[in-house]
């Protein structure tokens, strides 16, 4: 699966206005809502269920990235939003360090394999230092989008 297949480019936020974890999650779900990706009237519900999932175990995997996610019946197909914070957010990460890049992933309930494929793509790149660095340095929607498209073309970026 490619980033272009599931990342909603209209829901890329190069500088998040929220400063805390739950605020960031809500901001990203709201961006997907505005882009028309999650149906009407589901925004609060979905944000709450992402936060609940995050409370069970942090998706802050270390190295300044977090991948909050949930499977929800209101979601028709896998979709992702990306947000960046130059000041860093406390995600109660495994390495206790702040998070600078957040990939929020929403998946349908009835298609676990599709969720796994999107996860594979996200982690394939996030584990590479160069990709994390480029992502963190991207300051505009266009720069993030260009990076993702380049990553689709060169799987080892």
């Amino acid at each position, binding site marked *: 699966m490619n980033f272009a297949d599931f990342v909603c480019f209209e829901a890329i936020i190069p500088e998040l206005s929220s400063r805390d974890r739950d605020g960031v999650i809500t901001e990203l779900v709201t961006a997907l809502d505005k882009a028309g990706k999650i149906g009407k009237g589901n925004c609060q519900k979905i944000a709450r269920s992402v936060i609940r999932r995050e409370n*069970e*175990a942090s*998706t802050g*995997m*270390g*190295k300044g990235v977090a*991948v909050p*996610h949930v499977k929800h019946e209101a979601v028709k197909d896998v979709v992702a939003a990306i947000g960046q914070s130059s000041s860093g957010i406390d995600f109660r990460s*495994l390495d206790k360090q702040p998070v600078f890049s957040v990939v929020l992933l929403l998946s349908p309930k009835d298609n*676990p*394999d599709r*969720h*796994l*494929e999107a*996860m*594979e793509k996200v*982690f*394939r790149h*996030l*584990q590479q230092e160069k990709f994390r660095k480029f992502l963190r340095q991207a300051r505009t929607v266009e720069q993030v989008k260009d990076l993702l498209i380049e990553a689709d073309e060169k799987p080892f970026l």
Partner: protein
Amino acid sequence: MQIKNAEGVHMRPAMQFVDVSNRFKSKITVSNDKTIVDGKSIMQVSMLAAGYGTKLKVKAEGPDAKEAIDALRELVEVKMFGEPPPKGITG
């Protein structure tokens, strides 16, 4: 080892896998047909996209290799990461 829980190795099972791996001194690698990854790295294990029915090759090298494989097999195939199998299938 074969994945038997319906949802496959999503993030929570991947974390459990890495937790067990890290209890051992041995070097642990996991592979599917395409990719070979470090069994002690959460990002790498999440990258396997191992869905229900996937067969993973788990290799341990070191002083406690056998114990490591036994513990991982228990987690994956017996406990099934504490998750249910697909509907209509028992264990």
